[in-house]
């Protein structure tokens, strides 16, 4: 989908007093639609929640405990970048 609709990370505060927690991601063409898609997907039919959406590419990450040499320790993506890997065709089924 980042061929067309980019990926956004979603943070939800389910009620006052709590902080925003990462809920997952959504695809959307822009921030306004991302907010709406996030509301529909992560807070369905719930009132009063606060939602933040951030373009996944805007996230700067550091998780030193997670160990892959591909990820430099500073200022790097939260996830592996799709273009560096091919979808493996030869894999097992359940």
């Amino acid at each position, binding site marked *: 989908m*980042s061929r067309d609709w980019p990926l956004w990370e979603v943070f939800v505060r389910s009620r006052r007093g709590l902080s925003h927690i990462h809920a997952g991601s*959504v695809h959307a063409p822009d*921030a306004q639609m991302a907010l709406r898609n996030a509301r529909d997907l992560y807070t369905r039919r719930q009132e009063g929640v606060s939602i933040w959406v951030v373009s996944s590419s805007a996230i700067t990450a550091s998780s030193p405990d997670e160990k892959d040499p591909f990820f430099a320790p500073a200022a790097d993506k939260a996830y592996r970048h799709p273009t560096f890997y091919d979808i493996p065709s030869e894999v097992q089924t359940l």
Partner: protein
Amino acid sequence: MESDLAAGFERLLNTDQRIEPRDWMPEAYRATLIRQIAQHAHSEIIGMQPEGNWISRAPSLRRKATLIAKVQDEAGHGLYLYGACETLGVDRADLLDLLHSGQQKYSSIFNYPTLSWADIGAVGWLVDGAAITNQVALCRCSYGPYARAMVRICKEESFHQRQGFDILNTLAHGTPAQQAMAQDAVDRWWWPSLMMFGPPDDASPHSAQSMAWRIKRHSNDELRQKFVDITVPQAAAAGLSLPDPELRWNEQRGHYDIGPIDWAEFWRVVKGDGPCNRQRMERRVQAHEEGRWVREAAVAHAAKHSKRSGADQAGTAA
């Protein structure tokens, strides 16, 4: 260096900790997970079709509402799972291409038709019941994003199964025509539901590796047995029979014995010769193709507006 990384990976597995997206992982682990999670997501999406088939004809407004909610949840579950899969470095668009071209599969239970309203009950009770049996275990799978998606999904699923059972139970205590409808649906969905757990593990060579990686936590046969043991008493409670003359309680084993499963049918359906394989794909591909102009319009609009107002990277709704 790689052996240190592999040792670190093994240590996480052995201490039942989660592997997260930025952890080193064997390429085969990553590849297996991508396929498993993607196919799980595809199953949710394709599963919307047999159930969506009865939205327009649900016989009461309450049933119509719960059915729409159920199918909506399935779309949502697909989205959670595609999201989890994308953390492994794949694009949802590519995964959908693989589904549409037949290179990735979906659960073949959805290649069966929903022929009557009672089928909606049977699908909720048996198909979701089987899925839940599988999914509870996945909440503890080794890959963090997948496990977390499964926790979210499991919370929403139990309502679906109860609704399915309630539909059948109501029919089973209804008019003679309704009772017959319910029994007919159960007769058609029972064996395919048992097949959802997959072939016996001795016919499944990759099971051992999946277990070692804690992607799979129980064998196919174990899960199938668990499902049977839970479901048989439920059928009795609803006054419905199950189409297996060899089904009986085995006191020694402490489990129900079942008759032989027709694995030839399973493989026929998996390979594309089930009742609805072609139409499930056609409908899916058609929705995708017909939606192309809409998706492209949204991209074009975003491009026009980000040029005008500067990159639009974040939004909030308090």
